[in-house]
């Protein structure tokens, strides 16, 4: 085997999805992780505890998830790309501080490996019940970035995207995977350095001893940062604030800030939307799915195609902000739209809001902790087609 061949071979690794999250975060430049281990996300912390010191980063096991997210926010503000990982119960605990990161506009990445809920729920089983919690879990009007993937190669890229988006928009970005993707092992080709674009921290060029306005946007709307504890003194608060970072109750400042926090993401869906699609051109039935459910959906889509059923599929990789225009356009000619997810119906409502004639939209779901199977989806399709199970 040639040297190039050996290098290529060593780039292809057989990993769990959780391990892919860890490797992709390192690739993206993440050098600080604080977390509290929880099934089914534990392998992320486990791998980073070993890997971060090897690359000059820091790993901290915290006392709980509240401490974890707060440490991540602090490390990021001080200038290091930072991440935490958890599952539903820990994600619930993090909500208050996630709101703080939204309000103070501090980039950070949170991986939520979903398990069954509510509460401690089903630690070792598959679920996609946290979709709405990512969007609305912390209080107050805001928008947030949420990305997901169904296979390890896409997951690698999605984690890098999450870091990039969090830096560009100064927002928490949530990587939302599920127990199946997190624990499954399959091949992943680790990209060469430089192969994927990385967005580095945008630092202010305001010199020392000159006033720095932490929330004064540049012409392109980006907010240059100054490493906290470095050369500038400035205020950071969860209160509504002005461009200095100091609290304000002036209606215009409040109004502008809320619009900014919401629209900086909602107006940039074109840049933020990641998806994959198959066989939509003549599709009378369109499946919409994401995460591990999308593996089952695509399985049955290809199976039905092979027997002549005009069926196509969209796999969402950006869940928030929800790509409503893309969904509306792609589903324009579909007779039926089937949303496949492992919850009581969360993305299905967004799809109904997005499309014309929402009565075309059906839900294929499973909430018993088992991964939804291609056969589960096939049964619903047959019922819709009036063929009976």
């Amino acid at each position, binding site marked *: 085997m040639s040297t190039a061949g050996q290098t290529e071979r060593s780039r292809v690794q*057989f990993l769990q999805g959780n391990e892919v999250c860890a490797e992709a975060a390192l690739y993206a430049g993440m050098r600080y992780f604080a977390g509290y281990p929880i099934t089914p996300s534990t392998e992320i912390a486990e791998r980073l505890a070993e890997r971060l010191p090897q690359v000059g980063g820091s790993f901290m096991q915290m006392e709980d998830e509240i401490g974890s997210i707060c440490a991540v926010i602090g490390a990021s503000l001080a200038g290091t790309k930072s991440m935490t990982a958890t599952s539903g119960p820990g994600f619930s605990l993090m909500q208050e501080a996630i709101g703080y990161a939204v309000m103070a506009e501090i980039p950070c990445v949170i991986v939520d490996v979903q398990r069954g809920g509510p509460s401690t729920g089903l630690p070792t089983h598959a679920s996609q019940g946290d979709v709405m919690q990512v969007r609305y879990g912390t209080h107050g009007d805001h928008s947030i970035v949420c990305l997901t993937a169904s296979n390890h190669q896409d997951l690698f890229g999605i984690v890098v995207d999450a870091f990039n988006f969090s830096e560009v928009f100064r927002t928490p970005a949530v990587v939302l995977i599920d127990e199946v993707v997190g*624990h499954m092992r*399959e091949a992943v080709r680790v990209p060469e350095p430089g192969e994927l674009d990385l967005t580095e921290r945008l630092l202010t060029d305001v010199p020392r001893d000159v006033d720095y306005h932490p929330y004064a946007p540049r012409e392109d709307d980006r907010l240059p940062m100054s490493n906290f504890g470095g050369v500038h003194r400035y205020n950071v608060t969860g209160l509504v604030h002005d461009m200095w970072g100091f609290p304000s109750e002036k209606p215009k400042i409040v109004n502008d800030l809320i619009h900014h926090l919401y629209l900086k993401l909602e107006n940039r869906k074109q840049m933020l939307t990641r998806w994959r699609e198959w066989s939509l051109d003549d599709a009378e039935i369109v499946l919409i799915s994401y995460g*591990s459910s999308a593996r089952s959906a*695509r*399985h049955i889509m290809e199976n039905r195609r092979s027997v002549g059923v005009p069926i196509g599929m969209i796999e969402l990789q950006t869940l928030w902000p929800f790509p409503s225009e893309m969904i509306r356009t792609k589903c324009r000619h579909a007779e039926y739209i089937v949303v496949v997810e492992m919850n009581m119906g969360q993305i299905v409502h967004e799809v109904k809001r997005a499309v014309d004639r929402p009565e075309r939209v059906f839900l294929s779901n499973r909430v018993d902790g088992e991964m939804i*199977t291609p056969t589960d989806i096939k049964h619903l399709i047959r019922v819709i087609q009036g063929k009976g199970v």
Partner: protein
Amino acid sequence: MIERFVLSGTGGQGVITAAIILAESALHHTGFHAVQTQVYGPEARGGSARSDVIIADREILFPKVLEPNVLVCLSQMAYDRYCSLVRPGGVVITDPHYVKRWQHASSRHVEVPLHDTAMRELGSTQAINICLLGALVRLIPIVPLDGVREVVSHRFPERFREANSAALDLGAGLVKESVTTF
């Protein structure tokens, strides 16, 4: 071509490690795709262990095995629970030391005396999962034995290399001919 394996037994026997090695060997030493999952749920408590491996010549989408072509059972509980899942024409591999078989018409049954051989030749059952891999890839020749040997040698510390290699050959020596499952 698609081959669906379920490897099951008791916690500590190393069947999950064996499954990971099988899948990784297929990835690196054949042109095939491979996916491995394992059961973490309550059914995996109380000492039982199960891992699924799919090896196929095309992208593997649904990663779980509902109906295996190849079922390995190294405990009676696993055998009783999973035996009926095997596809018609599939093969069930058991060790008579652990499993008392009952008749199942639509699948073939292969008994491999892993436990007794390992105790006699190696003095312990520590490497029984490596023996199992040797027997398994001789029986279902989807991955070359030396491919498994290479992955095993990377996966464990250097000092176990020779012992594992011997365990692999010991297992392979227990199987005289391969079977087809599809």
